[in-house]
């Protein structure tokens, strides 16, 4: 009846960076044919309490590419089982299941892209929008001996944020790291960027 003639997809793996999770596998090749893949997931809740339940992925059921963005499926910090099967017309392969369940707390966190600018005497930072789960820990200081580092937690979502009013002639430096409360982790700090307000003019 057309079941399991197709080989099951192999080499399943998850690539996860900044809470974006991509499930990948080796393509099933039938010359001249387009293979469709169906991806399903099961959180720890389902595997413990409803082991028969597998949920079709939001974006990968079906898909023609040997990969599927499972970011919208992995929405809790628990282990998730993932499986894929191939389909060609009435033929479907067996399920191929990810060897180890995936937990989003293993995602790779990288420092955000930042743009440090000034508007007159005002130090302003603009940070990339990495999504609602991200906060940014912004550290800034005056580049001079004994300067104290100030810290601000920002959820800017791509809008310029005011950091400090600068004194002319003194360089101000900024570095940033991402914070993801949902997994209790943060990225390394970015490189520091410094700006200075020119001029020795001191308004009275």
């Amino acid at each position: 009846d057309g079941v399991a003639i197709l080989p099951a997809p192999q080499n399943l793996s998850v690539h996860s960076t900044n809470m974006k999770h991509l499930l990948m596998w080796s393509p099933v090749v039938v010359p001249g044919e387009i293979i469709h893949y169906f991806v399903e997931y099961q959180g720890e809740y389902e595997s413990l309490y409803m082991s028969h339940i597998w949920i079709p992925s939001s974006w990968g059921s079906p898909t023609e590419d040997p990969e599927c963005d499972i970011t919208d499926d992995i929405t809790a910090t628990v282990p998730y089982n993932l499986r894929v099967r191939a389909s060609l017309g009435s033929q479907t392969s067996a399920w191929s299941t990810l060897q180890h369940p995936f937990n989003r707390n293993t995602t790779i966190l990288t420092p955000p892209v930042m743009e440090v600018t000034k508007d007159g005497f005002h130090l302003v930072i603009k940070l990339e929008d990495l999504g609602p789960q991200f906060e940014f820990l912004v550290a800034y200081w005056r580049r001079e001996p004994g300067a104290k580092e100030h810290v601000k937690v920002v959820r800017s979502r791509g809008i310029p944020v005011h950091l400090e009013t600068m004194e002319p002639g003194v360089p101000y430096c900024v570095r940033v790291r991402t914070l993801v409360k949902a997994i209790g982790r943060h990225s390394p700090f970015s490189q520091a960027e410094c700006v200075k307000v020119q001029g020795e003019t001191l308004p009275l």
Partner: protein
Amino acid sequence: AVLCISGGLPKPTNITFLSINMRNILQWSPPEGLQGTEVTYTVQYFIYGQKKWLNKSECRNISRTCCDLSVETSDYEHQYYAKVKAIWETNCSKWAETGRFYPFLETQIGPPGIALTTDERSISIVLTAPEKWKRNPEDSSLSMQQIYSNLKYNVSVYNTQSNRTWSQYVTNHTLVLSWLEPDTLYCVHVESFVPGPPRLARPSEKLCVRTLKDQTSAVKV
């Protein structure tokens, strides 16, 4: 109550609560095809978990398409339903009912009051927390901050000369923007924000103020 043939009219449509700072107004649209006719409406409300529907006497046989249920829904930690039916001559519609209304989560937080004062190089912004709706003007005021302890303000500042905008979240009620450009028009608007489930927001009006001309000549060091 005058008896009418139920279902003789189509139901009112788009029945929802419009809630701002816990002022909860039920509003709806006339039944299809009956705009402009002399239809009247009757409203009832229900406290979730209680036993029966209750009348709102001031909204019996009314011709307007809204009804203020702020008093009846003032306990913002409860949930409510409301329903309205249309009456025209001897016919009336079936009830049109809202979904479950939860003021604590659904009310829109109005913008704070804003006062701006300026000198040559600074603007001071004084914010007044939005107030919870109150039945009588002489009743004591309750700030929305007392209901939402994590209420913050998103202050956006637009420098009309550099065409640059920046914002900052503040929790206290005074903010001084210093070392600004003299003789420059700055525009400010402020939005109240409560972290939590998405909530409609009502940004303030945009207020603009010009910093004063630089009265003194700059001193070279």
